């Protein structure tokens, strides 16, 4: 085998797969403002996203994640966590699978529909953030 053999995925995917960014190391100590989970292990992919939000500006200040899944699933959630940080909640809510794939420098066609789910988990986390906000406002009121 030669040393330089092409990998199944792009170099960006490989980089995120090898060095995942913003991994949620310990769920029990992370103070998130919203959390969302999508997919399930039976189907081969499950993603969890936790966000911290600046209440005054509505900007996502931190985004952490965990993923059960293939290399495409791991890399796509990792890259999404980078994209989401610094975005407003509205901007983040509108991120699509296409945005993630573009940032990854492409994914094999047959991988896109199954391994890119992070944006849905992010939306679930944002919904959770609003839900929590309503509850805490109700409590205060």
């Amino acid at each position, binding site marked *: *085998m030669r040393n330089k053999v092409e990998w199944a995925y792009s170099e960006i995917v490989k980089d995120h797969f090898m060095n995942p960014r913003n991994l949620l190391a310990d769920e029990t100590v992370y103070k998130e403002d919203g959390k969302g*989970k999508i997919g399930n*292990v039976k*189907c*081969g*992919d499950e993603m969890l996203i936790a966000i911290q939000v600046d209440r005054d500006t509505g900007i996502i200040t931190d985004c952490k994640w*965990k993923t*059960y899944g293939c*290399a495409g*699933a791991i890399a796509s959630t990792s890259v999404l966590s980078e994209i989401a940080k610094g975005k407003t909640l509205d901007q983040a809510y509108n991120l699509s699978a296409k945005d993630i794939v573009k940032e990854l420098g492409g994914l094999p066609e047959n991988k896109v529909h199954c391994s890119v789910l992070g944006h849905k988990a992010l939306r679930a986390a944002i919904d959770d953030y609003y839900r929590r906000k309503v509850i805490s406002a109700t409590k205060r009121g």
Partner: protein
Amino acid sequence: MDRKVYLDHNATTPLHPEVKKVMSEAMEIFGNPSSMHGFGRQARRLIDESRRSIASFIGGKPEDMVFMGSGSEANNTVFNLLSCSAKKCEAPHIGRRQVVTSLIEHPCVLEAAGCLQERGVEVAYAPVDGDGKIDIPEYEKLVSERTALVSVMMANNETGTIQDIKKIAAIAHRYGVLFHTDAVQAAGKIPVDVMDLGVDYLSMSAHKIYGPKGIGALYVSPGVPFCPFIRGGHQERGRRAGTENTMGIVGFGKAVEMRSKEMAGEAGRLLLLKSRLRAGIEKNIKDIKFNGHPSDVLPGTLNVSFDGAEGEAILLYLDLEGIAVSTGSACASGSLDPSHVLIASGMDAERAHGSIRISLGRDNTEAEIDYTVGKLTAVIDKVRKISTTGHRS
């Protein structure tokens, strides 16, 4: 990272050095084996020699062996017999409209069976137990005088589980049913004797046993029906048209010859290596399950599930360390379906997604096994830390 550890011998094997040698010599033998002149006769002689070694290796006669392009072609050829509706065909299976196979066959058998189904042939699938062995009583219920063909693989490519082919064939024959076994993973790894097994057709392949790719063979028992899948020539006694692949056949013959010398010794060595690997995994990694039958199994095959870790991720992290294994899930091909073999043995989808196959071969060493255990332990730990499922190594 320069170390390369190849642990995917059920996918394919490197050429045996002796095979390489005879193949490069055979490269010069370009004559058409059908030609009557010296060039042709020289090629013919090499092919005949190979045919003799391969036939004797599985206990058949040279005239019972039909060389084909692959194990898949051999399997397809057998299933193709059943779609024949020629008026003049008097084969005894004509008029029987059912085929029995199993849930754990190679995709080329399952798809060939599916194709028959579309042509109106009924296909029944024998179930397997938790160890991946054919459930014999359930299988027997499926076979009757309506059955034309039973096809059950001898050893499974994913788990290595070996079936009781002799018993399964005898049940088929009790109802006058033709019996085929896909022995692509078995022939050359464990003893195979067509007379003892009592099979009518047996498929084998060269590249799983240190021979070249692109060459396989079908054993056809004397007197059983046969119909060529590829037509247009008298080659292989009219059973498979196309100018013979002299170089491939020569390599196949040498591969089998080397197997007859090395197989038994290697099996013992691989079993020891596999025990070492298994013990290393058991000692270092929690929440695992070994799959397949504990003793009726190919000596070099180990299939293991890791809870909370997905197979393709494990495969690719190991690949980055230079270690080559395989996963039964079709994930890499874009389907999310977990291994049909593990699901058939009753495993839940969650665990099946986290399974890898490690298949050892003649070049593997103890040092490579120890290296693999170390890297695998670190990879599983890493994948589980990323995973949503919260498993800890």
